C-alpha cells in the first residue's frame, strides 16, 4: 500500500472565546492509495437528514427492550431511506458480497455503551440483505472494554468479535502505511495509524455510537466513534486542560478508506450521558432517553446530539459544553466524576463544524432535515 501525503493545518478551534487555546499544529495525512471513492462515503446518500425515533418503553429500569428497539430501527430506517422494509433499507448501503463491520462504542461499558440489543438487530438487518454471519464483524479498538459489555456472549453465533488492540501500546492491529502525523504536546510517538481491519478487510461500516458527553471533545458521537475508534495513539490529542480533538476528529474521518467505508450511522440514545463521558459509571449523569437516531451524515447527527446534550445540561443546571471558564477546570478526576460543573479539559465541540468544513456533512442546524418519530 502506498501513501498519498496531505498537509492540513490551521483549522481554527471553534468556541475558544474565553481562553486562548494553543495553536493547532499541522497534521500530515497519509491515506491509502487513491481508489474509486464510494458514492456512499460521508456524508452519504442523505446529507443533512437525521431521523430520530423515540419510544419511552424502549428502556425500563436500565433494561433495553429488544422488540421495541426492533420496531424503532425499522421505523427509522424506512423514514431515512423511503423504503418499505428494513431489508430494503439496509440494501441501500450493503451488498451481499460485503464484509460488514459494526463499529460499536463500548468505552462506557457497562453503564453506557452500544446496546447489545440494538447491535443484534442491526446484525439481523445486515443478514437480511444476504450477508452471511461470518462476514459480519463487531469491533472496537479495545478488547477489554468489549469484555465488560459482554458482547462476545451476547452476539449471534458466527459473527466475529474483534478488539483491535490489547493494551495501550499494542500496535500490531494497525496498518503502518495509513496514518496521521502530528505533534501536539511534544509526544514521542507522533503517528496515529489506521486499524488494519478498516484499511484492508472491511467493505462497509455501520457506525453505532452512543449519545454521550465527552470531557475533551464535547460530545462523542458518530465522528469521534469512528475517528478515535479507528486510529491508535489518540489520547495524546488532549492534555489537561487543552484538547486538539478539534480538528483531529474530522481530519481522521476524512482519511480514505475510512471515509468511504462508513455508510450508515445508527446512534444508540437509549441512554444519554450528559456529564462524565466517555467513561462514567455514575448513574446520576446517565439519563434513560429511549431514542435512536439514524443518518448517513455524521456531522448532522452529531450537531443534533450536541443540541440534545446541551438542552439536558441546561435543565440540570450544568454549564454549557462550550463553556471555557478556567474556574470549571479541575485536575481531580474524582471531582469531575461527581460534579457536573467541573471538567478536565476545555471541551471542543467545534470539532463537529470543523468536520463539516472538510465536507463530511452539514453542521448548520437550519439546513438539517431533522425528522422526529415519537412512537410511544
Amino acid at each position: 500500500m502506498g501513501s498519498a501525503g496531505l498537509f492540513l493545518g490551521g483549522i481554527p478551534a471553534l468556541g475558544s472565546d474565553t481562553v486562548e487555546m494553543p495553536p493547532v499544529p499541522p497534521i500530515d495525512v497519509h491515506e491509502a492509495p487513491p481508489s474509486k471513492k464510494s458514492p456512499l462515503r460521508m456524508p452519504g446518500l442523505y446529507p443533512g437528514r437525521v431521523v430520530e425515533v423515540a419510544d419511552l418503553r424502549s428502556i425500563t429500569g436500565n433494561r433495553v427492550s429488544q422488540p421495541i428497539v426492533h420496531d424503532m430501527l425499522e421505523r427509522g430506517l424506512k423514514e431515512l431511506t423511503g423504503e418499505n422494509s428494513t431489508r430494503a433499507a439496509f440494501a441501500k448501503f450493503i451488498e451481499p458480497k460485503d464484509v460488514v463491520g459494526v463499529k460499536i462504542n463500548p468505552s462506557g461499558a457497562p453503564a453506557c455503551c452500544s446496546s447489545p440489543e440494538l447491535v443484534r438487530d442491526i446484525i439481523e438487518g445486515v443478514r437480511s440483505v444476504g450477508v452471511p454471519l461470518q462476514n459480519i464483524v463487531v469491533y472496537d479498538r479495545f478488547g477489554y472494554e468489549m469484555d465488560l459489555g459482554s458482547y462476545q456472549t451476547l452476539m449471534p453465533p458466527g459473527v466475529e468479535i474483534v478488539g483491535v488492540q490489547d493494551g495501550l501500546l499494542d500496535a500490531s492491529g494497525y496498518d503502518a502505511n495509513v496514518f496521521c502525523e502530528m505533534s501536539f504536546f511534544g509526544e514521542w510517538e507522533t503517528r496515529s495509524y489506521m486499524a488494519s481491519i478498516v484499511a484492508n478487510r472491511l467493505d462497509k461500516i455501520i457506525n453505532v455510537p452512543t449519545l454521550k458527553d465527552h470531557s475533551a471533545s464535547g460530545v462523542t458521537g458518530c465522528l469521534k466513534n469512528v475517528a478515535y475508534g479507528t486510529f491508535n495513539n489518540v489520547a495524546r490529542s488532549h492534555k489537561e486542560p487543552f484538547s486538539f480533538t478539534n480538528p483531529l476528529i474530522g481530519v481522521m474521518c476524512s482519511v480514505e478508506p475510512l471515509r468511504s467505508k462508513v455508510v450508515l450511522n445508527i446512534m444508540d440514545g437509549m441512554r444519554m450521558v450528559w456529564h462524565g463521558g466517555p467513561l462514567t459509571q455514575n448513574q446520576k449523569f446517565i439519563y434513560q432517553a429511549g431514542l435512536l437516531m439514524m443518518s448517513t451524515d455524521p456531522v448532522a447527527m452529531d450537531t443534533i446530539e450536541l443540541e440534545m446534550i446541551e438542552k439536558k445540561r441546561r435543565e440540570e443546571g450544568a454549564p454549557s459544553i462550550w463553556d471555557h471558564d478556567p474556574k470549571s477546570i479541575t485536575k481531580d478526576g474524582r471531582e469531575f466524576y461527581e460534579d457536573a460543573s467541573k471538567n478536565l479539559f476545555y471541551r471542543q465541540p467545534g470539532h463537529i463544524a470543523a468536520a463539516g468544513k472538510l465536507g463530511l456533512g452539514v453542521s448548520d442546524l437550519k439546513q438539517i432535515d431533522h425528522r422526529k418519530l415519537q412512537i410511544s
Partner: protein
Amino acid sequence: MTDKSPVPAGSAVNENDWVTLLKDNARTGGFGAPALPSPAKARWQERVGGSIRSAPVLHDGTLYVTSSTGYLYALQADTGRQKWKFKAGGQIHSTPSLFGSVVLFGCDDGRMYAVNGDSGTKAWETSTDGEIWASPVVRQGMAYFGSADAHVHAVEAQTGKRCWKTALGGRVYGTAFAGDKGLFVGCGDGNMHSLDAATGKIQWSTLTGNGIDSSPALVGDTLLIGSQDFFVYAIDANIGTVRWKYETGLGVSAAPAVSGDVVVIGSKDGFLYALELGTGKLRWKVPAGEVITGPAVVGDSAIYLQSWGLLALELATGKVLWRAGLGSGVQNVPVIAGRTIYLTSHDGDVYALE
C-alpha cells in the same frame, strides 16, 4: 472412565494447589484461607506481556498463566522465574485447568490445548468452530468446555478424543460446572442448561432474560448463576425451576462463591452482594469497584476480589478491610496459597504478594 493421572482431575492434593477455576471442581476457592493482612510487599513481579484476562492456576510450585499474547506461561511460584512458555494459535482468555500434570486451556483459534506441565510440550489439541474462552472442567477423565461455536464439547482429557458435542442456542463463554448431578452451563441465548455428562443430552433448560456468561456454582441441589438480565438465580438443579432470583443494578458476569449459607457475587453495577443461600434475601451489599465481572474468593472470614485492584472485605459485614492498587482485572481471580496471594492483571503483570 477413571483418572489415569497421579492427581485426581479437578481436585487439589496439596492444600495450596489451585488446579482449576476457583481452586477445584467444587469451586471452593479460598476455603480455609485465613483473613490475610494487607500485603506488605511483592515477593516478585513478572511481566508476561499482552493482557491477562483469565485466572492463574497453581500446582506443585508452578503457577500457570495464560495471556492474550497467545502464550501459556509456567512460572516458578517462589521466584516468578519463567520455566517455559507454550505458544498457541491465537489469543488466550481461558483459565487453565490441570489434569494430573497436564495443563488444559482453550484458545481464540478454536482449539483446546493440552500441554505437559513439566516440559511445556503439547500433548494434544482438538478443534471447535469458535473461540474458547471458557475454562475446561475436568472430571473423571473427561474435559468439558463450551465454545463460541454454540456447542458444549466433551473430550477425553488423556487424549483429546471427542466423546460428544451438544448444540445450544448461543455462544458459550461461561465455564461449566461438573458434578454428580451432571453438567451445568450458561449460554449466550439466556438459557441455563443441565446436560447428562455421559451423553451430552440436555436434561432441562431454564430461560433467563438475557445472555449468560457467568459460571455456575452448585451447593447441594441448588444451582447459582448470574445473568445479563441483572438477576442472580437460584435454580433447582434436579428440574430447573427457579427457587429465587435477586435483582442487581446491571448485568452479572461474575461467578457466585458460597460460604456456608451465604452466596457472594459481584455485579457490573460495582456492588458486591451477600445473599442468603436458602432465600435470596440480601444480607449486605457494598460498593467494591466500578465494575465487577470476576468471581470473589471467599476465605474463612474474608473475601478477596479483583476489580480495579485487589481488595479484601469482611465476610460477615462486607466492610472493606484493605485495598491494594495492583491487579486490575476482568475475569482475573486471586490465588491464595498460605500467606501468599498470586495475582494477574489485565496489564500483563503477574505478582506474588506477601
